[in-house]
């Protein structure tokens, strides 16, 4: 698929800032996509059942060893699937990509660390990881600041490194587009895919309940306002599509980081033709 990069609205996310574009003086602001999610789900709702998109996405202010404000995202969706199928996709994709990059399909060498690519990969539960390494339960305490800090400072460096890892079972307040687990409403069916502490991909069993999605967007929009970010216009096209959308699951994978992992690059700068500072 190839959905537009320049759009009139996006999913509200208080922690992801979009570039605003004025296409014509005086006309309403448009945005560079931070992810193709909303328009891809509209295509699913229109009847397609397995789609992917490979292309650039844009996020303001993100720059570091693993971050570029413009990077390449591989995003895919499957109908009548859930997060477990996405995990299987990743287990197939990584050995394949490794082989395509001229490595063995069995393992990659990163930072002097041998990482086996043979499935099954590790599955670490978010709540168990936090209780074990950070000493608190994000299912019991809703503290986004502490969660983000401990995730970067404690959890990610503690993850096993001999094989890729799925971090699964995020607290419900950490997933604005994921379905909640039918067995435990405190847990969202959200999965993150890591290789040696590097976050490669994020996926959900998608929320397809229009009412619940509208409520979550309202909540997230309030958070944006509190942070002084101008809210996006109402996501009417997307809400209307949700009425027609069946159960599905989708994953977004950072392609530059995947290439880093497969080539042993130390920083994301090493896998792009030019960094933002160079062009």
């Amino acid at each position: 698929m190839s959905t537009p990069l320049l759009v009139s609205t996006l999913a509200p996310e208080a922690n992801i800032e979009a570039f605003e574009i004025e296409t014509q003086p005086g006309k309403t602001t448009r945005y560079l996509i931070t992810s193709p999610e909303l328009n891809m789900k509209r295509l699913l709702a229109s009847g397609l059942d397995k789609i992917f998109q490979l292309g650039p996405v844009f996020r303001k202010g993100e720059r570091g060893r693993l971050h570029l404000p413009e990077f390449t995202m591989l995003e895919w969706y499957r109908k009548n699937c859930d997060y477990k199928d996405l995990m299987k996709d990743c287990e197939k994709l990584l050995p394949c990509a490794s082989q395509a990059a001229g490595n063995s399909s069995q393992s990659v060498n990163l930072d002097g660390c041998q990482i086996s690519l043979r499935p099954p990969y590790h599955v670490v539960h978010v709540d168990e990881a936090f209780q074990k390494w950070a000493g608190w339960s994000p299912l019991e305490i809703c503290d986004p600041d502490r969660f983000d800090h401990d995730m970067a400072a404690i959890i990610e460096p503690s993850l096993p490194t001999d094989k890729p890892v799925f971090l699964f079972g995020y607290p419900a307040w950490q997933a604005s587009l994921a379905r909640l687990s039918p067995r435990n409403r405190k847990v969202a069916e959200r999965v993150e895919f890591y290789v040696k502490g590097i976050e490669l991909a994020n996926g959900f069993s998608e929320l397809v309940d229009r009412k619940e999605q509208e409520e979550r967007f309202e909540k997230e929009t309030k958070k944006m306002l509190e942070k002084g970010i101008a809210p996006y216009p109402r996501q009417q096209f997307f809400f209307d599509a949700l009425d027609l959308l069946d159960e599905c699951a989708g994953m977004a994978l950072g392609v530059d980081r995947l290439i880093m992992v497969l080539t042993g690059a130390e920083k994301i700068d090493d896998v792009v033709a030019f960094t933002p500072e160079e062009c």
Partner: protein
Amino acid sequence: MYDSSDLRKGLKIVLDDEPYIITDFQFSKPGKGQALYRCKLKNMVTGYTIDRTFRSGDKFEPANLEEVHMQYLYNDADGYHFMDLKTYEQVTLSDEQVGEAKNFLKDNMEVDILFFRGTPISISLPTFVELEVIEAMPGVKGDTATGATKPVTLETGHKIQVPLFIEEGDVLKIDTRTGEYVERAKK
């Protein structure tokens, strides 16, 4: 004011009313989470390094430091006195602020004094200084082992290790970064 997105290696900012320089900087951000700006910062007064994590929206006051070329005059109970050779203005630094530099500080020596918010906070010596030996044991004849050293006392009262051939009255070139003898400057 700076905000978090200005943070980078080498930036000087004020934290808890003290000037710091960022010596290591890492941007990290879980895809869906908030950005964290993890810094190692060196206190420009004490030299101590600390770790701090900042978030988006945090604001920082730039640490404006000024270096002034001054001449060392003398020390007394109040501390060490220096004079700006252009304005003849005098400032005083405490024993603590001068620190190890006092071992190599000699009357009339020209040094750089670092000012933060108009107050002198530290001193930086020239990389090399020349100081006279005022006390030295005679070298033991026959002891020619390479690398053999003996202690001598400099005119500042500080003792350092030097090669055996150094005598009283010699002027030595000393590297103030390491505090070590470099060579004999002249007799």
